[in-house]
């Protein structure tokens, strides 16, 4: 499915302009982010959560980003998506601060973030506002929010997933809204590598069930329901503006750093088998690999060769080299294999 060119339907973002209703005492502010950089937008969410006083005030942020894969706070990137495919396609990986599962973002996806203080945190209410708005725009659409806080079209297609974050004073609940995403790109990157993982298990409706929804597109006039009332017209924010958002640059670089994106992965282990064959002697062997990864670094690695291919001492040396290195299945395994070959050959020579 081809990504439809993003033409900003004016009604999409002039949300409340159509449905300005009574001013509630809550005071709702609506903003739209100018940026399509995933890290900048996530940094903006983070900045708002830490710096805006949300007592008796709600804030909505609408944003979208270029192609990116976004994993939840405690997820395992290697289990959720194919790093190699992403690298080849130039799709960056981001880890957000909120929980939940992995999503694929691109311009065909609209993100909505609902900020409030913890007392007013109510995800169902937020989703109701979204479904009401969609139904008001297109009454024939059968969109419903589920218990799992997804929005489902026609009872079977998932068009929106949610995640949220609660901290001391503030909370936010954000959700996606697919209206014209690139399904094939999505499927190619959201295919996990075979790993054993103890990270947060993905939600029941797997991403491959995400629907093509040609019905829900361009002319969606998106009006927030009088559920919240609206008290200000839509304002556009530029998350790269350090003077408006002091410290946001630092947050964005923290979100881009390896230590956050990969280093925050909960502990997991990898069990796999590698095949080694010697071209010269045509000897073949297999090796069982057991790798433990903590904080994104290889904390321990154990190789057991099927035959007595290498003396134990050398195997330990080999493992020792890799311990403490950043985990990257592609590189680690290739390195291990090549090293094993070289050592073996040298070993054979010397013998």
């Amino acid at each position, binding site marked *: 499915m081809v990504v439809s060119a993003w033409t900003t339907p004016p009604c999409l973002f002039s949300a409340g302009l159509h449905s300005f209703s009574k001013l509630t005492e809550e005071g709702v502010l609506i903003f739209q982010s100018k940026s399509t950089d995933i890290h900048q937008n996530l940094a903006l969410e983070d900045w708002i959560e*830490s710096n805006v006083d949300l007592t008796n005030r709600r804030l909505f942020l609408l944003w979208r980003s270029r192609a990116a894969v976004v994993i939840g706070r405690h997820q395992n990137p290697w289990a959720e998506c194919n790093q190699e495919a992403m690298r080849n396609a130039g799709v960056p990986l981001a880890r957000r601060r909120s929980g939940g599962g992995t999503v694929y973002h691109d311009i065909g996806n609209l993100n909505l973030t609902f900020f409030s203080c913890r007392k007013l945190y109510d995800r169902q209410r937020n989703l109701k506002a979204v479904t009401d708005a969609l139904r008001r725009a297109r009454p024939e659409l059968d969109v419903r929010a589920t218990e799992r806080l997804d929005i489902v079209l026609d009872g079977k297609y998932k068009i929106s997933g949610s995640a949220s*974050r609660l*901290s001391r004073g503030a909370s936010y609940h954000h959700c996606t809204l697919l209206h014209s995403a690139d399904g094939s790109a999505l499927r190619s990157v959201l295919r996990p590598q075979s790993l054993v993982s103890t990270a947060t298990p993905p939600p029941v409706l797997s991403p491959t069930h995400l629907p093509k929804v040609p019905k829900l597109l361009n002319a969606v006039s998106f009006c927030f329901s009088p559920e919240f009332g609206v008290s200000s017209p839509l304002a556009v924010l530029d998350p790269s503006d350090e003077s408006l958002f002091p410290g946001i640059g630092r947050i964005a670089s923290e979100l881009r750093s390896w230590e956050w994106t990969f280093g925050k992965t909960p502990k997991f282990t990898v069990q796999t088998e590698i095949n080694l064959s010697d071209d010269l002697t045509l000897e073949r062997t297999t090796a069982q690999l057991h790798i433990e990864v903590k904080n994104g670094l290889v904390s321990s690695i154990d190789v057991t060769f099927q035959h007595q291919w290498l003396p134990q001492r050398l195997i330990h040396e080999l493992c020792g*080299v890799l311990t403490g290195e950043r985990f990257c299945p592609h590189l680690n395994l290739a*390195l291990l294999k090549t090293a094993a070959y070289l*050592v073996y050959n040298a070993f054979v020579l010397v013998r």
Partner: protein
Amino acid sequence: MAAVTRGSFIVFRRLLSQQYRCRCFRPQCVSSGRSVQTLAFTRDRTQRRFAWRTLHTNTVNYGPVVQFKLSDIGEGIMEVTVKEWYVKEGDKVSQFDSICEVQSDKASVTITSRYDGVIRKLYYEVDATAQVGMPLVDIETESKVIQEEDVVETPAMDQEEHTHQEIKGHKTQATPAVRRLAMENNIKLSEVVATGKDGRILKEDILNFLSKQTGAILPPAPMQHIQTPPPIPVAIKPAPAMPKPMFTGKDVTEPLKGFHKAMVKTMTAALKIPHFGYCDEVDLSRLVRVRKDLQPVTQAQGVKLSYMPFFIKAASLGLLHFPSLNASLDDACQNITYKASHNIGLAMDTSQGLLVPNVKNVQMLSVLEIALELNRLQTLGAAGQLGTADLTGGTFTLSNIGSIGGTYAKPVILPPEVAIGALGKIQILPRFDASGQVTAAHIMKVSWSADHRIIDGATMCRFSNLWREYLETPEQMLLHLK
């Protein structure tokens, strides 16, 4: 694949170097020399969100160990998964420091500490399931606190998420923490006016109910130490309206709760100290004139200047000469600690009741800075937002009962301090001046109390004289300007 080749080359070279050195293969003890990627990940976020504590084992025995329970996340969620710990046993934490990250149903929640203290026990491993309402960590705190759950702070008051509960036929909705609070103070939930959503009783409702009953609020708050009615600072608002007298017609017995309970405790401790009193009068005529002249200047800067900044500064100047009055005696009466900072407390009548916030390091502040600080404390006090930092750490106290009335008093020392002064009202009285003529003088009475175990009468007297001198001839303070 350049990285691979490079990496493998290093391996190859390293591993084979031994073999070329000696012709046959022999296991060698080689230092691994690997380049361990140190995870030098620092999160230098703003103090408000995450404050990393450096690890140091605290050997000082603080106080009771409080079980810090996992609070309600909201939406009826009863269990969460612990995903990451930010502290470990032995770490020192402050209120609002992050303790751990938990996850429930796509929500990632940062749990922050309610207390200052030392972590003594973690109840869960990473990836374990934690139950809402069950203990999460044990914190050894510095002072006695009610065992409560992690309460989410919003600027003014504590707010909590709600669970719908029914107990014993009362259809009152309140969270477990609120119920406990009510139980400890013997309050029937049905009597409390609920202001929460759907008629839920919030913690503020209980506190309001209590304050209506007793005029003050719950822990930890240093209590009244004067036997006369609570003082209000000079030059601030007029006294609140007198409540309409109600004739009930019968005796009412109620158990002591909240404020009174705490006061009983404090007073019992305080009156174990052998007090002695010393009273005097101060002629403030010159100070009245000085203040009148200075007021327009400070007004222009938006600062209210009362007499208190002068009293406080003069006390600090006096304490420089008599450090034993700014000291503390330990419980066993073995050691006396001369406190370096002059943190002078000021009794204040606030919406939370009678509190004694203190101005820190008065020895370093000018009169104007003290006035500014007083303004700040008074504003916070009026809004009921005085924090622990402002309320603890006092070393000396002044109480201005004169703003309500009275002349002499017998103030009660607030442990662990050793002295206190009560200031009566300023009256215009006839006095003889230097030339023997009767003149109108602004006279204020002061009543000092001190701990007779370490302070003697002469010391108190000399301090009082010095203090009085500074106030009777304010220009003397100029000599000490830095």
